[in-house]
């Protein structure tokens, strides 16, 4: 069991360094904007896994504070059940079965849009508990705890690293590079006010052709990252979005795609288990400002004004609405 392994390591750390328990532990993690690619992928041995490549969105985040105390684990707000479960699992993995405490989770990530709100709460909670006990958990350890807490997790515990992540196992299938090529993203929520229960959704039932079609998408993604080619990244994202459209259709998908194409976007990407769609632009292209403005006004006319506009490589942010 991974938990037991973590527990052994953590015990060694605690044992050699003495009790490093702090009064407060702090954890934070950024959200994301859905995926560049999500599907079925073989590992090195040829075994198939569900996997995804996340599009980071560093302008939204979850923050957790953990104050260790004997007895029960109390979580505020008390509906953050997955975060509470993750905190419990983290305490157990540190060998602190009788330990409780007070966990507070705050998030600026919208819920139900497929932007990682659930995983972000879980990862922030794990980091806060670990931090409170002086345990430095590696991203892989955080991922395994997160998957145990919520069945399927996004890869945000790995930060901006470009990885192909098996979301139901918490393992990295392939290290693609230090980061995706930078992108400028115009974000549209295709189902405002409804949202999707991203956690309860059944995994997509891809057909035989789709299972194979993910291979060339992965091939082009490798090249896009290796050569920093944002245009290739846009092609991969659009192709993955098209497959996703068969499984979790986004309203107005074709209209948004047409607007992206006519405005000169690199392509579109979707939250494969959510409602947001991103129009992708190259931040290094001087025409991008004009193109973004054009796309924004066209999206306005179909009643889907962009809610966010951000760059993946900078903290600079402009809230459109």
């Amino acid at each position: 069991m991974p938990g037991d392994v973590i527990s052994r390591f953590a015990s060694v750390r605690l044992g050699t360094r003495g009790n490093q328990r702090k009064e407060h532990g702090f954890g934070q993690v950024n959200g994301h904007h859905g995926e560049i690619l999500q599907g079925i992928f073989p590992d090195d041995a040829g075994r198939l896994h569900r996997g995804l490549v996340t599009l980071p969105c560093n302008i939204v985040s979850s923050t957790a504070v953990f104050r260790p105390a004997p007895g029960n684990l109390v979580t505020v707000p008390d509906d953050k059940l997955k975060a509470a479960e993750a905190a419990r699992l983290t305490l157990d993995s540190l060998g602190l079965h009788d330990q409780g405490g007070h966990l507070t989770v705050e998030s600026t990530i919208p819920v139900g849009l497929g932007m990682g709100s659930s995983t972000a709460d879980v990862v922030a909670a794990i980091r806060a508990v670990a931090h409170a006990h002086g345990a430095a958990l590696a991203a892989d350890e955080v991922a395994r705890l997160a998957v145990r807490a919520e069945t399927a997790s996004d890869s945000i515990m790995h930060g901006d690293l470009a990885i192909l992540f098996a979301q139901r196992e918490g393992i990295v299938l392939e290290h693609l590079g230090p980061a995706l090529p930078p992108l400028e993203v115009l974000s549209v929520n295709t189902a405002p006010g409804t949202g999707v229960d991203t956690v309860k959704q059944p995994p997509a039932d891809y057909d035989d052709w789709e299972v194979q079609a993910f291979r060339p998408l992965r091939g082009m993604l490798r090249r896009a990252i290796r050569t920093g080619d944002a245009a290739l990244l846009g092609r991969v994202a659009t192709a993955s979005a098209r497959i996703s459209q068969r499984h979790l259709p986004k309203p107005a998908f074709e209209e948004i795609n047409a607007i992206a194409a006519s405005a000169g976007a690199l392509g579109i990407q979707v939250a494969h288990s959510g409602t947001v769609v991103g129009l992708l632009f190259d931040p290094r292209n001087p025409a991008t400002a004009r193109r973004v403005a054009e796309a924004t006004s066209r999206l306005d006319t179909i009643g889907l004004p962009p809610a966010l506009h951000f760059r993946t490589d900078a903290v600079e942010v402009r809230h459109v609405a």
Partner: protein
Amino acid sequence: MSLEMTMSQPLSRESRGFPDYELPRLVRLTDNLHGAAFFLMKLLPARHMLDRAAADGRLKPGGTICETTSGTFGLALAMLAAVRGYKLILVSDPAIDEHLHKRLLELGVTLEIVEKPYEIGGFQTARLDRLRAALEANPGSFCPSQYGNADNPRAYAEVAEQIAERLGHVDCLVGTVGSGGSMSGIARFLRHLNPDLHVIGVDTPNSVVFGQPDGKRLLRGLGNSLVPPNVDHRQFDEIHWVGAAEAFLATRRLHQHHALYQGGTSGAAYLVADWWARTHPDRKVVTLFPDEGHRYVATIYNDDWLAALPGWTGVLPEAPQPVAHPSDVRPSWSSYRWDRQTLDEVLAAANPAARDLAEAA
């Protein structure tokens, strides 16, 4: 097969095979023309079809495989059957290459040669009848059916992956069409990443695949006397028909100019791809070379044999002859704007009677 079953299927890499022989080597021929040169292209679809059949129980460990083929698909099956411990029965006809025949026997294949063509349906129907008899005589045996098995085109996702990873964005794909697996498969996968991909299929006169009347063909390994269900006609923007003499001459030119020692279908693909790349210098072209030249030492690579070919001129045409309809195709290199139509749509438009009626109306 359900997705769950697919995901839990036995690992193909745990079975013996030839993974490093399956994918082509990519060779840059000119600024904008890339060749994908295979050792034996059919190894990839053969392995994939056997893997899938083994995964869902159609093919049992130590089981029997029956297929009708006189070409490289049979060789690929024979190689896999030899190392994976399957019994293989291949139905063929007297046209089978003598050296291939020996090689198949050495690999342990049971070779059933149909001696006489049927009066109606020729060797093709006679072979299918013999195949049916072999399947009945071996209950539980598996027939890969490369013409209709959807795992054939799907196998080529790995080639599309290699092309996408190594070449990135590609504007044009050129390749010969026989079973429909490689070109229909790769075209559909690459077009998912680039809807504007220009796809050129290369056929040969007297092949029915793209609407020619059936007839004797000297150029083997492309074209067909029937239309395989795996040919997805709507993937093709352009069709070219290349005759045997010019395909062989182009095969020699591929060797002389680019040092690639490939078979006759590679020459046909090269002729068309090189022309398109020259006339579209700003577009990136990739073309498929399905097998190596060693099997053609006594023929394509033999000047005396070439000179004795009917209609041999020793001169390569510079460009294809565009035709208004597939029914207008001549014995030498022709081209037709297929425009991603179905075969029925093209045939309806190409039917001279229908055309005359339309003109008279």
